[in-house]
């Protein structure tokens, strides 16, 4: 992962620990949101809101729909930040 994505991963970790009191060591790129981290569709909405606020990037729920793993989250935000610049 490049530097930008590493930064995004750190921010994602911060939001997840804040929102779910999650163990940081569990937040790895391969982790599946639903099966591994117990983040359901209702949680995902709150998670997206916080992530958007933190990273000041606008992403629609539709764009976020395909996200299944932490890596997917990072990729989506990396892409949207890049597009915004």
């Amino acid at each position: 992962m490049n530097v930008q994505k590493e930064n995004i991963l750190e921010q994602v970790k911060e939001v997840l620990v804040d929102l779910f009191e999650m163990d940081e060591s569990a937040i790895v790129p391969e982790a599946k949101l639903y099966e591994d981290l117990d983040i359901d569709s209702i949680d995902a909405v709150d998670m997206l809101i916080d992530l958007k606020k933190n990273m000041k990037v606008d992403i629609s729920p539709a764009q976020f729909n395909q996200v299944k793993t932490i890596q997917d989250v990072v990729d989506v935000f990396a892409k949207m930040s890049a597009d915004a610049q």
Partner: protein
Amino acid sequence: MKSVRKVWQIISAAISYFFFGLGALIVGVFFRLLSPIPIITAATKQKWIRWCIHKGCLAFIRFMRILGLIRYSFDLESMEQAKSGHIVIANHPSLIDVVLLLAVNKNLCCFVKSGVWDSFFTGAVARQAGFIPNSAEESVPMAAAKLKAGENLLIFPEGTRTEAEQDIRFKRGASNMAVAVNASILPVLIKCHPGALKKGDKWYHIPEGGPNFSLSSGHLLTLDDCIDTAKPRTIQYRQLTQFLEDYYKNWIATETPVATNKS
């Protein structure tokens, strides 16, 4: 003699379920015929249907009792006194839990699973009764709107029938709803001894003498009684779920509904 009694039990259970299905069908057809009549508003229809459902469920459990299939007792003072716009939760030991709850409660809005929502027999009744499908995207907003309008919602936090009474596991659905709307929660405990009509049991397997169902209700719980509502919603969902799970485990073990200190 025992086998004759067994056969009688199976027959009478079949008769009971048959009348239940027939009743649902008749109510469904009757109200579908009523649909085109403009004077009768959806709200009125809903009231009538819920009245029919309530009376039907009451008749059903009385019928089963007369046939010696079940016994039941209720201790639900707190439920009768609770105000409107709250969520009723219950554990889910048997197949007929909903029937029992609808028999004791005149105006309850239920979450129905897709099997019931889509079924020919029960689907029309469920829709016109203003019930909510549990699997649609609009389920949460629909439920929130009903709670705000003063209806009482029935949710089984386990999501399905209990597998092992010693290991009750609540999913987050009920908590999602309660936190989203800041609704109070009325807990009901359903005890069924000996265990019958559990998940995996055949519908005709009924213990000797019929299982004894006892329903009791605890005090209305506000969210502040249970959790720290200053925390992020995502944490509230989890803490509330854990609180309610512990509450029920304790209740089952001690037969007393006690709210333990919130974490």
